[in-house]
């Protein structure tokens, strides 16, 4: 087994009196791709936000390479540079060009050489097929293009772990594929990723391990084949059924 990169240990997350995550524990190994699925409101997005310290937790601990992630910590920005995150909404900075969106954080936060960063950014844009849009502004891009830029922006920080929060949920159907392809490529190149998604076919193809979350708890966890084809619990069974459609043609009225 490879080294453990991220350890989530029995975390509790409450909004006022509403417990959203209730004792979640799992490990993420280097190079592993975890897909988190579950019904709306089950706490998937909150889980990612906790891992990136955008939300404080009320119990348990999250450790990245042995260091505890704590929103009140002064070393937070150092830790965050190791975790890249892509959100559902197109969250590029509207006042900056595509290239500047990508290079500003490596330059200002990591204090890297601007020339080097730019070279790397252009190479990454090339890989996602957007080299020619480097000088465009976000408002000139389609939703799919914006998400690909957002992925490149996260990548350019050279993070150890990438978090994807329903990145295709707000996209038009014809643009979903181009974004998923980029993610498949990343997985193939050995990136460690935690992906929250509703694209079940994609989940099956990309996941090393699937975590099924319901009502703030891990209900089922396992390799994609056994999860999608032989779910162990009723809840997982019921959830997966919502993605199946029985043919209604030729049925008696």
């Amino acid at each position: 087994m490879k080294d453990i990169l991220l350890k989530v240990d029995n975390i509790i997350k409450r909004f006022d009196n509403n417990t959203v995550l209730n004792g979640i524990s799992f490990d993420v190994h280097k190079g592993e791709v975890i897909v988190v699925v579950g019904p709306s409101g089950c706490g998937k997005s909150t889980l990612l936000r906790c891992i990136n310290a955008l939300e404080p937790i009320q119990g348990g601990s999250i450790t990245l390479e042995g260091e505890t992630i704590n929103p009140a910590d002064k070393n937070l920005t150092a830790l965050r540079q190791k975790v890249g995150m892509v959100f559902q909404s197109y969250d590029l900075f509207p006042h900056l060009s595509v290239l500047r969106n990508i290079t500003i954080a490596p330059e200002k936060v990591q204090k890297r050489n601007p020339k080097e960063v730019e070279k790397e950014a252009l190479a990454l844009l090339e890989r996602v097929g957007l080299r020619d849009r480097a000088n465009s502004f976000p408002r000139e891009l389609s939703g799919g293009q914006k998400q690909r830029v957002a992925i490149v922006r996260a990548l350019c920080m050279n993070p150890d772990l990438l978090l994807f929060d329903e990145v295709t949920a707000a996209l038009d159907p014809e643009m979903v594929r181009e974004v998923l392809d980029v993610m498949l490529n990343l997985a193939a190149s050995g990136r460690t990723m935690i992906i929250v998604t509703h694209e079940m076919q994609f989940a099956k193809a990309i996941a090393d391990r699937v975590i099924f979350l319901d009502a703030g708890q891990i209900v089922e966890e396992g390799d994609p084949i056994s999860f999608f084809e032989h779910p162990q619990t009723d809840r997982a069974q019921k959830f997966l059924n919502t993605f199946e459609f029985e043919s209604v043609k030729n049925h008696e009225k």
Partner: protein
Amino acid sequence: MPDLGLDVLLKGKNLARLLGGLGVAMRISMIAVVISIPLGIILGALMTWKNPVIKAILRVYLEVIRIMPQMVLLFLFYFGTTRAFGIDISGEMASIVVFTLWGTAEMSDLVRGALIAIPVHQYESAEALGFNRMQTYRYIIIPQTVRRLIPLSINLITRMIKTTSLILMIGVVEVLKVGQQIIEANRMVSPNAAFGIYLAIFMLYFFACWPISMLARYLENRWRV
């Protein structure tokens, strides 16, 4: 060509007097603008704070200044300060005070609006990239706020310039008052002078505000977000 009374413009020092009047209007509005903008930015940022006391105080200030006609404020500060406290300030000083109070209130509301219009995702994306609070404001939030703010604040500046026509009520002789004086002084010899003089005043206001409006349009196109 019909008699527009334009000859009256060139009589004696009339043109110079009109320009002088414009100078008074511009001086008062520009001093007020230069003070209002930084103050408005500070107050606008304070208005987005969660502190309910600060919020309430600023809200009251904004509403009071907005509800009161500028004319009332001018009377209040010119005559009211003398009546209440025995302080005798000049009409020009009273005008600057009133226009600064008004400009600061309006500017703070514009800044508040621009700040809350920035989606929370912008803050979160910046945080997720490892920016600290200062860097988030410096590189992400303030540049976006300024872009939203520029056309709005330039609109405010032109409104302030135009509203200086009220200060004649507290004895400050600005361009409109000079115009009325010229028209009245010539009402026997050139009854049509009103048209020519108002035309001239229109042009003067236009040339004072036009470059500012053009700058706004240029920046708006350049910085469309």
